């Protein structure tokens, strides 16, 4: 068995052992030991692959594992493709996953269902690895739905909680809506190219070996590439929680916090960005699709940031922040700055996982309290957590020389340097969102750690007993904090021209990223200006005059409610889709099946037969001439018909 295959299989093996044997035979300690050992093995191999391919100059690797589905000309295999795009993802996925496994040892200590939790975590990692290492679109889809399943299982991990179960179902179904588009995109690719193999498809696309337009229902003839890319992008929107299909992500916070860090921040939700980068040879051929990606991304970045301003649940703030940052990645991809998108994906994994795990340490310290209004002054109780959270916040908000400073700036500069209308709009939205990002991030820090300790009895009790997390939790926090400081500086070369080699294709003339290195100084430093503005605002509102937010909320009540309820998307979808589906289902059942088909049709026929039989009984008069008359008429009819 090849080493590369082992990277994917080790987490699966760990998952199977913990899942099948953990509860009965191994016990909690052994289950987590096995899964963590498998993860460490996978991580070591991933780093080795990363060093060889990304740091060194080894060529990309392609291995066929086995043939999966063959039907006529439709041939799909399981395969492994390791190029620079993949190895970056390998390190992110296995790195964060390993740390989260370790963190969960402390965080889930009191939970009796230990082995099930670790089994799910490892299963998630396996599916995510399938997603990133695949060499064809169907394997991508396999991993895609696999991580969706893992997300469903982990959001609903505490299946006692009604809200957790509902959030799990919501996440699955919203993602299925995205997958619906994704699947149609895959079908179109097969129809146009006759294969789903990346290399083949990209080769033919580059050579222009495809029809320019295809017929599609409702819209008629459309540009082939635009159609394919937009359908794929629908899938990406679902998985990466972009505006319109984002509603599942905030609810997903019902899951345990390590899950939020791994799946709903660092890895799974970035799959959409990965997919767009992977399919860059296709996206590059459709300007319209790229513009859509840019606009959707920028809108999401701004939208989610506005909602993040007023949330009180510590995890929801970070969730909306994730949603917003994913928007940044998409509009970077939309202006053809795919390397910048991947770079931000890479740095974001560090600081966002750090923020979530730090929030988990806060929640752990506060006995499962998540409402920031019941927190405050925690800096004295948990200084280490405060320190790492502060590093994460600074990294996210783009404080100079920390991770986000490099990656977010690369995105904004690219959008500016694109010199297109769409790019400029995205730049403006991104800059505005940058102020909001700093504001809500420091609002979180100030509300949680600064100010006076909470007053109400329950929260005060929790505050009094607040304590630093155990070492199993502290270690991952420290590693991620270190990463958040240095990964931006170390990863810079990623945005240099041609670093991704053949893994990312950028068409001639799409040189936003190349120009981004030469933008004027004011463009380079304006994100830092946004940081100063956001920080000042947050300081005024939450440190200097902490009574002000409540006054403002009361004054602009409607705006506040609008933001608090996340622009009422949930309510809208409930009225538009959920309730009608149930009403129509009920109507079809009771009216369609019971009344019409069974009532008039089946039972109606039975009743009719009874009535006709009654009538026929009357006709059996016993008089011969009646029968004779009927025969004559019958003969006449038959002759008329057949003559």
């Amino acid at each position, binding site marked *: 068995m090849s080493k590369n295959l082992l990277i994917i299989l080790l987490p699966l093996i760990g998952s199977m052992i913990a899942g099948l044997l953990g509860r009965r035979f191994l016990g909690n300690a052994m289950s987590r030991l096995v899964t963590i050992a498998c993860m460490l093995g996978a991580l070591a191999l991933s780093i080795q692959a990363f060093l060889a391919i990304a740091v060194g100059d080894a060529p990309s690797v392609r291995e066929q594992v086995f043939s999966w589905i063959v039907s006529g000309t439709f041939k799909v295999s399981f395969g492994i493709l390791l190029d620079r795009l993949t190895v970056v993802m390998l390190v992110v996925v296995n790195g964060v996953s390993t740390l989260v496994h370790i963190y969960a040892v402390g965080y889930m200590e009191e939970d009796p269902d230990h082995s099930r939790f670790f089994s799910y975590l490892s299963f998630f990692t396996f599916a995510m690895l399938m997603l990133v290492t695949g060499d064809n679109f169907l394997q991508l889809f396999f991993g895609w739905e696999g991580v969706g399943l893992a997300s469903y299982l982990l959001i609903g991990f505490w299946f006692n909680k009604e809200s957790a179960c509902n959030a799990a*179902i919501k996440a699955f179904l919203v993602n299925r809506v995205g997958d619906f588009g994704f699947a149609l995109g895959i079908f179109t690719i097969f129809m146009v190219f006759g294969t789903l193999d990346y290399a083949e498809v990209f080769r033919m696309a580059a050579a222009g070996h495809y029809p320019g337009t295809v017929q599609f229902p409702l819209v008629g003839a459309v540009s082939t590439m635009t159609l394919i890319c937009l359908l794929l992008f629908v899938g990406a929107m679902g998985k990466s929680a972009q505006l319109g299909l984002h509603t599942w992500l905030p609810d997903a916070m019902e899951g345990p916090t390590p899950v939020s860090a791994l799946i709903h921040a660092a890895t799974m939700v970035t799959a959409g960005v990965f997919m767009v980068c992977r399919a860059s040879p296709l996206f590059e051929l459709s300007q319209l699709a790229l513009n859509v990606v840019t606009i959707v991304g920028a809108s999401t970045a701004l939208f989610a940031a506005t909602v993040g301003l007023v949330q009180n649940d510590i995890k929801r703030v970070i969730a909306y922040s994730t949603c917003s940052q994913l928007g940044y990645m998409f509009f970077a991809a939309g202006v053809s700055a795919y390397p910048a998108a991947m770079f931000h994906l890479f740095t974001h994994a560090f600081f966002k996982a750090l923020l979530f795990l730090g929030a988990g340490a806060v929640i752990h310290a506060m006995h499962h309290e998540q409402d920031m209004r019941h927190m405050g002054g925690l800096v004295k109780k948990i200084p280490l957590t405060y320190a790492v959270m502060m590093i994460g916040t600074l990294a996210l908000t783009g404080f100079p020389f920390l991770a986000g400073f490099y990656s977010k700036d690369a995105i904004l500069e690219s959008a500016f340097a694109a010199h297109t209308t769409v790019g400029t709009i995205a730049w403006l939205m991104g800059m505005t969102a940058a102020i909001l990002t700093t504001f809500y991030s420091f609002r979180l820090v100030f509300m949680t750690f600064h100010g006076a300790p909470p007053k109400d009895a329950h929260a005060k009790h929790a505050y009094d007993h607040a304590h630093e997390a155990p070492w199993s939790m502290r270690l991952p926090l420290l590693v991620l904090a270190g990463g958040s400081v240095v990964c931006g500086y170390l990863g810079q070369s990623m945005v240099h021209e041609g670093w991704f080699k053949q893994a990312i294709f950028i068409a001639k003339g799409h040189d936003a990223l190349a120009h981004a290195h030469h933008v004027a100084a004011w463009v380079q430093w304006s994100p830092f200006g946004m940081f100063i503005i956001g920080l000042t605002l947050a300081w005024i509102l939450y440190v200097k005059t902490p009574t002000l937010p409540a006054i403002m909320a009361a004054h602009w009540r409607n705006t506040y409610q609008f933001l608090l309820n996340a622009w009422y998307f949930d309510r809208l979808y409930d009225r538009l889709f959920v309730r009608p589906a149930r009403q129509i289902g009920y109507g079809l059942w009771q009216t369609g099946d019971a009344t019409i088909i069974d009532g008039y049709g089946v039972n109606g026929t039975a009743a009719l037969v009874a009535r006709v039989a009654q009538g026929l009984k009357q006709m059996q008069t016993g008089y011969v001439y009646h029968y004779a008359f009927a025969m004559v008429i019958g003969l006449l009819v038959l002759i008329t018909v057949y003559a």
Partner: protein
Amino acid sequence: MLSLVTFLPLVGALVILLVIRSDAQAKVFGLGVSLVTFLISLRLLTGFDPHTANFQFLEELKWLPEYGIAYRMGVDGISLPFVLLTTFLTPICLLASWESIRTRVREYFMAFLALESFVVGVFCALDFILFYVLWEAMLIPMFLIIGVWGGPNRVYAALKFFLYTLAGSVLMLIAILSLGYAGHTFSIPDLMKLPLSFAFQVWLFLGLFASFAVKVPMWPVHTWLPDAHVEAPTAGSVILAGILLKMGAYGFLRFSLPILPDASRYFIPFIFGLSLIAVVYTALVALMQKDLKKLVAYSSVSHMGFVTIGIFAMNQQGLEGGILQMINHGIVSGALFLLVGVIYDRMHTRMIAHFGGVAHVMPVYAVIFMLFTLASAGLPGTNSFVGEILILLGAFLANKAVAIIAATGLVFGAAYMLWMFKRVVFGQIVNEEVRAMKDLSAREVVLFLPLIVLVFWIGFYPGPFLNLFHASVENLLIQAAVVKTGAVALTQF
């Protein structure tokens, strides 16, 4: 060989009737016979040459030569999978009935074995009259299984099932007789070569369609299915969903497409329309069901809608997906009915609202239930994914609008299954009776194991299954593309 597989169960039923007196012995003997039948049917698999579309293991005995009727048996890549599915599911059904059937046990096992014989016969028959006789004969044991061992409303359900099917069968008989009269033979391979006029084909198609559509069941002649399922005993539901529903779609594959290709192509929009209604309509109806068995029954209608779409996409992917999905549906819906049966045996209710929090007391059950729920929702890695993706791809290549509407089934299918699963398995225990439920017994786990193996096997490595029917499907595609010149017309009557 085929006759042995076909009639061994019937002989077993006769032995129970004549020799065995005790219920316990009848159970063991019945299960033994069904297992032996399964083992013998595996020999068919090893002896089968998948590289040819020809009928294999041919048998022919004179019956009524003056009418062109003979005892003709044979299988190809399309029928063999269903023979195996039948011999595979029957022992599982018998084992599932081990404790839940307490009255007239001998008769129950006899009925089941007889049913197996007739169904296997249906799939092996290469003579249209023989096919028809077995097709009708199969109704009797099924009618008895529902009508004798069913639930409180069993007589209504059994009659509805019987009359619905019979109404279709009458029209099919007329079609068969006119076809045989026109071709001077009832040999199915010979009839495939018969050059029928288009108008004649249309009438024959409608006659056969009446019977097949009821069996599939297609909308709007599906309403017998939920009633039959709800009243049938667990194993009855398994065999009904697993095998009997497949006979309708098999009919399309064996008769409509190769014998009546012009009419089949002519009716594609019609079939697509009905199938799409089935996919969407019954999925929405399934969403609102309060009774677990009704929910699974409606989901069957929705999934079989996929199958008919695949078949009438008339390309390699659609047809292979359709056939594979029939097998998948037999496995998955069979398992789902077994799972419902497990909790029904414990609580004697199938109402979703009576459950909740089952995972707390039955963790093993919860895992297995989850697995089949996901398989039903077509998750990659499970068998249904392979079937659905092939069907949708085939449909997309044939007609994009059809594929798009059908693909919404991916969302609806996940919705009703996951919502049901949440209400039954997750949450807190509200009903105290749930707390008293015991997890799966060893016997019950054994029931599910082979099904679980197949779910993953087909999900990850469907090659051996698809290989069985590659050649036959290719041949079928050639047959279905033929434009018949139309020498044999309706006016000859």
